[in-house]
């Protein structure tokens, strides 16, 4: 699903002394089927933008257009009743993993917590069961072992996986991940992002992922979206962001592998510009192989 922002602004608590602009006249297009990484400082408007996409907030001005492969564009401003229904269907098809999602667990057993989403969406009982099975398998929790346990008796990492399974069980077609790895240990982080990336590929998601650690997510990302001070500072592919770093156009810190490449270019060890190295900079292994040849 392609998501297009058209002059979208959002203001919190308008008309009170606590009024605060969170997004200012943002326009951008998030391409379909891509793994999009969203970067930006705290308070730059990332989370607001994501919540607007999911329909949790309504734009104060402007509109959001959703384009799916089979259907037309839906405008997210004033709409007829029929359009509203279609819009609701689109919003339900978007999975949203909140920051520290384990805080939202509430049921007595893992299985019941995971089935909360699909049950709300009106999925039949039989299908719910198979969805839960599939979701638990995807996050690496064995059904026999965990289904009947209380989510509160699990470890932090396991709780997070239960919460992720809870989002997966609704079979989303688009996925929003708000710092999915925050607060985990390094090994769990790698495992988690690999697992999520596998799901991204297997389900053909358009995935939008917020992260503060570009290193963790660099190799999976197709597209970058950078927020700065309530606006979009940069949107583009890996190739384009490399170019921006080469020309020192953006403030966002590059991943360590790119920093290393930039240093090697500066010292004259690598003779090619950054933009020609996008394949070699895909992963540290590829870069090592390339350096072996230099």
């Amino acid at each position, binding site marked *: 699903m392609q998501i297009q922002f058209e002059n979208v602004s959002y203001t919190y608590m308008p008309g009170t*002394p606590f009024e605060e602009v969170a997004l200012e006249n943002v326009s951008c297009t998030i391409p379909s089927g891509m793994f999009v990484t969203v970067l930006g400082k705290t308070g730059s408007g990332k989370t607001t933008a994501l919540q607007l996409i999911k329909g949790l907030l309504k734009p104060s001005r402007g509109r959001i257009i959703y384009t799916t492969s089979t259907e037309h564009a839906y405008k997210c401003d004033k709409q007829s009743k029929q359009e509203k229904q279609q819009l609701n269907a689109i919003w339900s098809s978007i*999975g949203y993993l909140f920051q520290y999602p384990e*805080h*939202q*667990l*509430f049921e007595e057993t893992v299985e019941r917590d995971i089935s*909360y989403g699909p049950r*709300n969406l009106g999925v039949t009982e039989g299908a719910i069961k198979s969805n839960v099975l599939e979701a638990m398998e995807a996050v690496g929790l064995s059904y026999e072992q965990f289904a009947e346990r209380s989510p*509160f008796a699990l470890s932090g990492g396991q709780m997070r996986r239960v919460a992720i399974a809870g989002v997966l069980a*609704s079979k989303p077609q688009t996925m929003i991940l708000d710092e999915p790895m925050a607060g985990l240990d390094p090994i769990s982080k790698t495992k988690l992002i690999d697992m999520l990336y596998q799901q991204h590929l297997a389900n053909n998601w358009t995935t939008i992922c917020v992260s503060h650690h570009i290193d963790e997510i660099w190799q999976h990302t197709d597209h970058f979206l950078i927020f700065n001070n309530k606006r979009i500072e940069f949107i583009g592919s890996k190739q384009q962001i490399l170019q921006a770093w080469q020309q020192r156009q953006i403030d966002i810190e590059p991943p360590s592998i790119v920093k290393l490449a930039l240093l090697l270019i500066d010292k004259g060890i690598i003779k090619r510009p950054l933009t020609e190295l996008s394949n070699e900079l895909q992963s540290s292994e590829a870069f090592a192989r390339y350096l072996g040849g230099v």
Partner: protein
Amino acid sequence: MLDQILIGQYVAIDSFLHRLDPRTKLIAMFLIVVNIFIVAETYQYLIIMSLVVLVFLLSKIGFKHLYRGMRPILWFVYFTFFLHVLINKDGELLWQYGFLSVYSEGIIQGFIISFRLFVLIFFSTILTLTTAPMTLTQGIEELLKPLRRLIPVHEIALMLTISIRFIPTILRETDKLIKAQTARGGSIGQGSILKRVKHVIPLVVPLLIISFKRAEELAIAMEARGYRGSIGRTKYRQLTFNAFDQLVLLIMILMTSLTMFVLFS
């Protein structure tokens, strides 16, 4: 979704009322409560009405914001008025329709009682709008100090402070949880009452868990910083009465004595 709820609605601007000592404001508030329940003459109501206007102007609070803060409780005022109008059967019959009847005394009583309520709501709203919550609790603590042999004043004030401090945190948490559960299809804004009640559980359970965890962390953090109750504790911020505080208190005491005098003579 919780955008409209204003608790701890303090507006950080500078005005005459903002600069008053919290103790002055609390005492004045108390004296106004005393006054409003013993006044009887029309001119006294006019004095109180002008006091309302004066305080409103001195607070520099926007009317819209004030109204927003009072609106949830104002229903109580309307309700009281209609109750009096419909139930009081004294005086002349003014209007009748079926079992509903309105008498002149009902309208007068309705006005008086709802005016009193309005004044109470107005002054308490102004108090919270012009006094930072922490300053307010400090004021309460200082005022209760003479009772410290009878009740744990400092501990009560600390409890107040902590609850006030965490209201915005918990509101933010609730807002996030509402969104998180809405994202899973559990919208509390939709459906029948039964459905809505069912969607409260997914909010309350995580909220309680988070709050307990936070309470424990706070206790550990306070102990780590050497907190050991009220004994030997000094204050970083000292409250001082200045000339304006004395003036306000003088006026309020004079006013109260006068109403007392009118009442008993």
